[in-house]
């Protein structure tokens, strides 16, 4: 049966019960993922069903607030676990997923968190990680610096791990979120000539 002519929320109801033709499933799930009103219907129907089965399943706290907090934590999770988040796959522009990913609710949170992370890492690596004790000073061998070479062609120090992290989060964070700090970081990496 073709249910395309039915209202969207009636198809959501049928979907919940496993009565939606498989051929229509993908399109409806895309609608669900993109439209807040559809997701709201999904939520309300499930609450009604849960409460009918057991009154103890009535939401005690705001389900959507729970989801909001979870989304924030997951955004941090994505930033903190570059192993899990592989370098983002480029979705075809025509894919509905491309639109959802680009406009997803975690995009800006993830981008902001990533910016903070890069800032913290940069402070540790370039910003003033001064040794805190004489023993540390003694333990670190003095670097041999070819000052003539540095003056001729300044070399930017790169951390492969940080590069990999940035590459992995290039799509998630967005260029605009970290282009300015990265410009600053490059300037801060030049070695001074020895006095």
């Amino acid at each position, binding site marked *: 049966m073709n249910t395309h002519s039915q209202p969207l929320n009636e198809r959501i109801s049928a979907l919940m*019960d496993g009565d939606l033709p498989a051929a229509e499933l993908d399109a409806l799930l895309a609608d669900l993922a993109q439209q807040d009103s559809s997701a709201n219907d999904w939520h309300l129907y499930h609450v009604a069903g849960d409460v009918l089965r057991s009154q103890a399943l009535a939401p005690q706290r705001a389900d959507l607030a729970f989801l909001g907090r979870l989304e924030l934590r997951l955004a941090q*999770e994505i930033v903190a676990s570059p192993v899990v988040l592989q370098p*983002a796959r480029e979705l075809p522009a025509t894919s509905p997923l491309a639109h959802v990913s680009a406009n997803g609710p975690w995009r800006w949170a993830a981008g902001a968190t990533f910016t903070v992370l890069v800032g913290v890492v940069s402070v540790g690596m370039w910003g003033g990680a001064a040794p805190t004790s004489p023993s540390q000073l003694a333990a670190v061998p003095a670097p041999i610096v070819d000052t003539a070479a540095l003056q001729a062609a300044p070399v930017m120090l790169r951390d492969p791990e940080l590069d990999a992290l940035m590459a992995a989060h290039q799509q998630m964070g967005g260029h605009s979120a970290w282009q300015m700090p990265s410009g600053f970081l490059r300037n801060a990496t030049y070695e001074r000539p020895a006095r």
Partner: protein
Amino acid sequence: MTEPSASPNDVDLLLVERTLAGDQRAYGLLVLKYQRRIQRLVGRMVRDVDLVEDIAQETFIRAYRALHQFRGDAQFYTWLYRIAVNTAKKFLLELKRNPTMSESFLSSAEEDETSRPKYEPSTEETPESELAAKEIAGVVNTAMDALPEELRQAVTLREIEGLSYEEIAVAMDCPIGTVRSRIFRAREAISAKVKPLLEKQTGKRW
């Protein structure tokens, strides 16, 4: 000829696959579907309301991390259930190890969201959230009572008895399309009554 339909389990699996493909909101739909059952389950093992929420959050975080391991062999809720129980046990173990934490956080170690707690909060301790939940349950029941008989029967057979549309059609002696329509109308009627309460909950600061 009847077109093949996706079972509710297929829907869960598809939402998992969409999440893995980068559609984070698909995971949100799974959370909206299962969070109450998970919170209820955890609430049977832990008394503290805030801790229940923390453990439920941690459950969904862990499930998200392990999502690529879910193959659809078992039901998604069964898989999620084990993660929730293990997460709660880990929290409880840490609580017991930490002498500064009160045992008042702990409840029985029963792993069933339908079992009764050994600890019952007193009237003074009853949180506002419990009253809100009771209010929602009351509104759902009232809305059910107000439904026309054929809608109430259809949604009861589906949501409480768990019958398929085909079985309900036989039981009610009507076409499947009518069953689908009746269940949808029943859900709409109940949702219309519940929606303001949920919006009120969302607007509150807990």
